[in-house]
């Protein structure tokens, strides 16, 4: 894991022409290859606007965005899709094919990956996400939590360097949530960069290296979850509550931040 920047957002301002709303106001952030980053903030704080700049869905009004050193200004979304995979919050926006299997092949085929490789990736995804039983089913015939996994798998087969996961655990139950954890760990092992837009603090506390906090079009904090959870003003002003276990440790251990139940267990034993 070299500390090479893969995402460079430089003084980006974005103004939506409709309604003249400034959704990003002079935001700068650099993300290194292999980092697992969480992005939090209320709806309307600019999170989604920011990540949409990473795969060229939006272009900066001012400033520039470099992905792997290349300016996104001249790149189309389709060209960016080889590098940046965007998993939408609602799988219904992404899925359309007749079977789960076709769905998994759609992305790599668009990228002109050769057939043998497509097949290998598809089988790997089916195994990894546990989709064997539903490979021939229509994506809309399976329940929402699993459908959401299919959405992730359909990007997984494209092997992008950067994964953007938009609320990967909303609408999930604990079992499918565990799969999401597993996915993020796997991506970390393989050296992918992951940007996780989420409200799920328990997830973020356990998986991310770094938390970016947005409020009113500004980036107001950028540090490890441990540090961010201890920033009282930041957390309160964004109405974000750290996980219950963190709140407990803050309360019992005079400002000490733990991120998981197991960590608290160790903490209490010592």
């Amino acid at each position, binding site marked *: 894991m070299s500390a090479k920047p893969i995402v460079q957002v430089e003084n980006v301002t974005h103004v939506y022409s409709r309604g003249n709303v400034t959704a990003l106001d002079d935001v700068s952030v650099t993300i290194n290859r292999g980092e697992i980053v969480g992005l939090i903030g*209320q*709806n*309307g704080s600019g999170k989604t606007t920011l990540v949409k700049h990473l795969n060229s869905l939006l272009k900066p009004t001012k400033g520039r965005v470099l992905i792997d050193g290349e300016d996104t200004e001249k790149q189309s979304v389709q060209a960016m899709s080889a590098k940046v995979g965007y998993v939408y919050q609602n799988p219904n926006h992404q899925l359309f094919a007749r079977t789960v299997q076709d769905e998994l092949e759609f992305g790599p085929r668009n990228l002109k990956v050769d057939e043998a490789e497509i097949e290998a990736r598809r089988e790997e995804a089916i195994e990894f996400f546990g989709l064997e039983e539903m490979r021939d089913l229509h994506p809309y015939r399976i*329940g*929402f*939590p699993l459908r959401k996994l299919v959405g992730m798998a359909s990007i997984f087969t494209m092997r992008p360097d950067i994964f953007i996961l938009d609320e990967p655990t*909303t*609408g999930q*139950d*604990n*079992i499918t949530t565990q799969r999401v954890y597993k996915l993020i760990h796997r991506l970390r092992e393989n050296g992918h960069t992951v940007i996780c837009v989420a*409200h799920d603090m*328990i997830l973020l506390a356990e998986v991310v290296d770094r938390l970016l906090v947005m409020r009113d079009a500004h980036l107001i904090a950028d540090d490890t979850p441990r540090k961010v959870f201890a920033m009282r003003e930041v957390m309160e002003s*964004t*109405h*974000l*509550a750290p*996980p*219950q*276990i963190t*709140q*407990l440790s803050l*309360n*019992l251990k005079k400002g000490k931040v733990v991120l998981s*139940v197991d960590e*608290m*267990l160790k903490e*209490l*034993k010592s």
Partner: protein
Amino acid sequence: MAKGKPVIEFKDVSFGYAAASDREFAIENINLTIYEGEYVALLGLNGAGKTTLQLCINGVIPNSIMGEFSGEFSVYGQDTEVTSVREMAKLVGMVFDNPEFQLSQMSVAEEIALGMENIGFSFEEMNRIIPEVLKIVGLSGLEERSPFALSGGQQQRLSIASALAMRPKILVMDEPTSNVDPIGKEEIFAVAAKLNKEENMTIVMAEHEVEVMAAYADRVIVMDEGKIVLNGTPKEVFSETALFERLGLRTPQVTELSAKLAKKGTRKFSKGYPVTLDEAVSSLR
């Protein structure tokens, strides 16, 4: 924890959707009594039968959704199979998980009026009730706004207001916070708690947020594969941490911690495991 008289009674109720291919029961042999003024949390995996159970409460099952229904069910002593939709709507208000999919009207005021029009409230009554319910959910002044221009949390509170306008005694909410941001969640939980405390409204809420439910609910019911597997106070139910894990469900983090501490013999919890942050702080201090 019986607060008042029994208002919702399931006696051996089973239901299977006609549309389901496998002809399995979505809920099976449900026996359950809910009392007036109770705040009941419903937990379970997707597909455990929470939604089906909730749809029985206002009679949409079996009246409008096809399927095989057996057993006896009543709300305030009325058999939903024979009570008209109109009467049921006055007893039970429903709020669903996707805020936007419940809305259809041009303005907030008309959205709220819709239910009242259907049961024949007069114009004067509607004019009096609309600002009243908007005030309860904290949306005063937005009468003329389009429902589709509201945030997710506001839309969900509008759905609550639309249900409240018909003066129900029971409010059934199916994962009302699953599609809204943290502020929206706070607002919705606050409104539900207020209705329960101040108006003594019976609340039946399906939720994944166990930490919040542990703090608000009088009773927690856990469902698995169409059956009720746990039913009791949050303290009783969440102390079954091993069962929760087996079912693929979470308990509040503080409860999980306490159970692990107890297992290792590090701590003893004579009054049961803590289920809320405050309890944990005082028992672990």
